[in-house]
């Protein structure tokens, strides 16, 4: 049985590489949608203790945006994508041709645009994972939540909590002149971890 607290660095590298390929897939779609030149990379993959998780993204009680997709087919689990609220505002203002400094509450259509951005980025990651592992991976519609970082992060932390005391955070950075930090958390169920690693030829 795999112990998530003892995942080796090879696995980190693999996840990071999948992230970079996924990021490549996402840029075209995002660049079209946002009408800006975008490059994207995955600079960092970290295994963190729960208590440090929220602090990486924001202070625990600061609001952030989280998008959740349920993952099905050959592997089961879910995937989350987080953005600082400020970055979410920046993207929406860009998309809606609004004043870049506008911080009004998101409208219904803006929320739906943000869901789509989360969907494109997460979907690109999943499709990279799918093509590298030769597995069929499908995802649900995106669910969005804007609330305290700690509260949103409790959702993936609980999923990881069933297997260990740490969670795997994949940082992604994208944008043009303004760099935007987003974070993924991939949450396969335990037997799906083994499936992913086995299909990549990694022995555990």
């Amino acid at each position, binding site marked *: 049985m795999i112990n998530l607290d003892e995942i080796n660095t090879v696995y980190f590298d693999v996840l990071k590489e999948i992230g970079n390929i996924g990021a490549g897939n996402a840029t075209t779609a995002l660049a079209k949608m946002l009408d800006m030149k975008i490059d994207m990379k995955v600079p960092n993959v970290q295994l963190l203790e729960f208590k440090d998780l929220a602090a990486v993204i924001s202070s625990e009680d600061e609001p952030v945006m989280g998008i959740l997709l349920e993952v099905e087919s050959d592997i089961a689990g879910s995937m989350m994508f987080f953005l600082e609220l400020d970055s979410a505002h920046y993207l929406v203002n860009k998309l809606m041709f609004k004043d870049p400094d506008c911080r009004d509450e998101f409208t219904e259509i803006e929320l739906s645009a943000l869901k789509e951005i989360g969907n494109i980025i997460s979907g690109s990651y999943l499709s990279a994972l799918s093509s590298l592992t030769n597995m069929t991976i499908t995802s*649900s519609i995106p669910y969005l939540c804007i609330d305290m970082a*700690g509260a949103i*992060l*409790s959702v993936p932390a609980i999923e990881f*909590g069933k297997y260990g005391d740490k969670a795997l955070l994949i940082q992604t950075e994208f944008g043009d002149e303004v760099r935007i930090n987003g974070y993924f958390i991939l949450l396969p169920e335990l037997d799906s971890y083994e499936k992913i690693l086995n299909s990549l030829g990694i022995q555990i």
Partner: protein
Amino acid sequence: MNIIKVGMADLNICKSPDMITTLGLGSCVGITLYDPVTKIGGLAHVMLPDSTQIRNNTNIAKFADTGIDELLKRVLAAGANRGRLQAKIAGGAKMFAVSGSSDMGRIGDRNAEAARTKLKELGIKLLVDETGLNFGRTIELYCETGELHIKAVGKPEKVV
């Protein structure tokens, strides 16, 4: 006044005039115990309902059952009187509107239920139950007064 911070899957105790807090409870549940005479209190931030369902269960503060046991032990050791203890719980929200049948969608409710069951089993009076719904909460227990302050994004602070 000192502020004692409790993280996720963590617990601690607190004495007057200090305050103990945990930030951003989502589907997790925060349980406070308080003795109004000695003004000794404690707070646990639990993530999962039942330690017996999980293989890797060394962190006892992670589970409602073992977490509340340990919290009780710690407040009693600090000088609280068991008969006077009052419990308050908050959190257990459903953060994402995922389909009702999935385990992820029900975990908040299950955590809150497990906390209630455990407190009942231990014979500790549950004074406040601010659980469920779909938003995060920050809670602060002021040991001077025993008041629990509950904060949420875009909502007025609640004192219970």
